């Protein structure tokens, strides 16, 4: 903290962000929170129902719990692909001597393409009739037996809708982690290598501890984006077949804008907020504990 800070300076710096945030985010959140205790279809008068929406969500809605399970699966796949993938790719990048900048930019490309186009492409990649890229590839390597309509099979659809989301942002997280890796002092690594440390030991004992804060940030970003993930599953399968790829977010969207049950939809979104807070807490807990070891 600065030695010469003043109350006024704090106010000057804090007011614009809080104002923007208050008006654009906090206000509607509070309004939603209030709505979660009401039954409202957007047309009729609002009716106070107390905790009825919460009771219904927690005890009487099988689809909700199904969606919750799916959301966790989606989160796991996205995290592995994005954070794990980014760590590996960033390490590979850091080992290159030339062309890093170009490659970095190329890795970012999928993130800039609109999700409509991405969804369309993946429909074709997963297609079986006619055989898409994935099924063609399986046949080519002699795994023809594994061919299936990936987006229609209730056992594979969740993974199939998670993968594009994971893949799309690998580049983004790679760049963040790569920037952190660059800041690791070379002397440290060289010294460790000369002391006979293996690549893995260099990574585990020097690089990773050094980038841990950035890694935590990245993990939190990826986790919260994954828990709020919506576009690609919505466009690819709209939650189907059945509820096999329904996420809490797509379920909430349908509850609000298909069923016009705004009160219940607000209840579900309150749950999403709680769920995300728990996830962030857990990530911080795990990564902090390691940092203190």
């Amino acid at each position, binding site marked *: 903290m600065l030695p010469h800070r003043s109350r006024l300076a704090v106010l000057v710096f804090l007011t614009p962000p809080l104002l923007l945030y208050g008006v654009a*985010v906090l206000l509607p959140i509070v309004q939603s929170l209030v709505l979660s205790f009401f039954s409202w279809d957007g047309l009729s008068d609002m009716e106070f129902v107390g905790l009825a929406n919460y009771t219904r969500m927690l005890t009487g809605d099988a689809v909700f719990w199904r969606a919750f399970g799916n959301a966790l699966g989606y989160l796991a796949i996205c995290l592995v692909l994005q954070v794990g993938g980014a760590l590996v790719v960033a390490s590979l990048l850091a080992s290159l001597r030339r062309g890093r900048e170009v490659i970095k930019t190329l890795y970012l490309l999928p993130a800039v393409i609109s999700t409509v186009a991405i969804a369309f492409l993946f429909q074709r990649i997963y297609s079986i009739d006619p055989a898409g890229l994935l099924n*063609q590839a399986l046949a080519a390597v002699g795994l023809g037996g594994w061919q299936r309509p990936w987006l229609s099979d209730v056992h594979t659809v969740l993974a199939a809708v998670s993968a594009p989301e994971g893949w799309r942002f690998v580049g983004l997280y790679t760049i963040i982690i790569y920037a952190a890796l660059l800041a690791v002092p070379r002397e440290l690594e060289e010294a460790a290598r000369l002391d006979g440390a293996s690549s893995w030991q260099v990574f585990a004992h020097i690089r990773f501890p050094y980038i841990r804060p950035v890694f935590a940030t990245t993990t939190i970003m990826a986790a919260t984006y994954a828990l709020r993930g919506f576009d690609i599953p919505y466009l690819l399968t709209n939650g189907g077949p059945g509820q096999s790829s329904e996420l809490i977010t797509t379920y909430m969207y349908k509850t609000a804008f298909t069923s016009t049950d705004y009160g219940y939809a607000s209840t579900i979104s309150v749950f999403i907020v709680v769920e995300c807070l728990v996830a962030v807490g857990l990530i911080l807990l795990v990564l902090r504990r390691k940092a203190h070891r």
Partner: protein
Amino acid sequence: MTTYAPAKAPARAGGRPHKPRRPSRRPPSPARLASRVLVGALVVVQVYPLVWLFLTSLRTERDFAGGNPFALPTSLTFDNYARAFGHGHLGRNILNSLIVTMGANVLIVLCGMMGAYALQVLGFRFSRVVRALFLVGIVVPVQIALVPLFVDYTRVGLLDTYPSMILPLAGFALPMSVYLFSSFFEYIPREVYEAASLDGAGPYRIFARITLPMSVNTVVTVVMVNSIFIWNDFIFANTFVLSEDLKTIPLGLQNYIGAMGKTDWTATFAAVCVTVTPLLLIFLVLNRAMIYGLERGASKG
């Protein structure tokens, strides 16, 4: 976030005996070769969709309808681009997207930096409360804000204006921006501030002379991350925009949807190719800026 401090320890613990570096010209080891192949394969995986998109935008309709979608087009046509421009208002859409993206980015960067400065550098009694408030924003799903925001904007006459898109986009991106700036400010050694303070610089001067110039690298990161999401935002634009003149690119792409959901995909892809170009250009420019920022940061470390 101060708990991250121990992670910096290795940086200061670099006191091991320095041995001379080996000559840098080594024959590539198998591991190195494998990693290069892997990097190359990943490039293909990441670049392919854009190439595919571009090729599809050049396909004739019949080739698109009946052909293998992954084969090379049998013949090329620019008709799709003609239809894309003829049926839509691509120029207008791009301009609107630029305005919204830039407006939101300015807010995100300025407010994010100021908030992080107040939280991380100045510090105050309730900073934990404010941090917690921002955390809630990181994790709230935007969809639920739609109805309340729509009602609010209608009341204050913001509906169907640029701010009706910019404000929520900036607001929802703000927490992550504050978080990223905070993490970065933590890295600026306290001695820098103490020295400046001793020279008599106040909080505003320190912000303008020290914090701001040092944050270029983080600014670029924040802008890059947010531009991607804002450029492709559909949900706020679809909810708050009514007039044709304000439609952004994702809304403009809907012009190629016909009766009962029948979509002119080749024209859509042509439009996607056109509209993705400005974003790509911004990316290439910012990427340079990011590298400069990184190098400067490295030389100071």
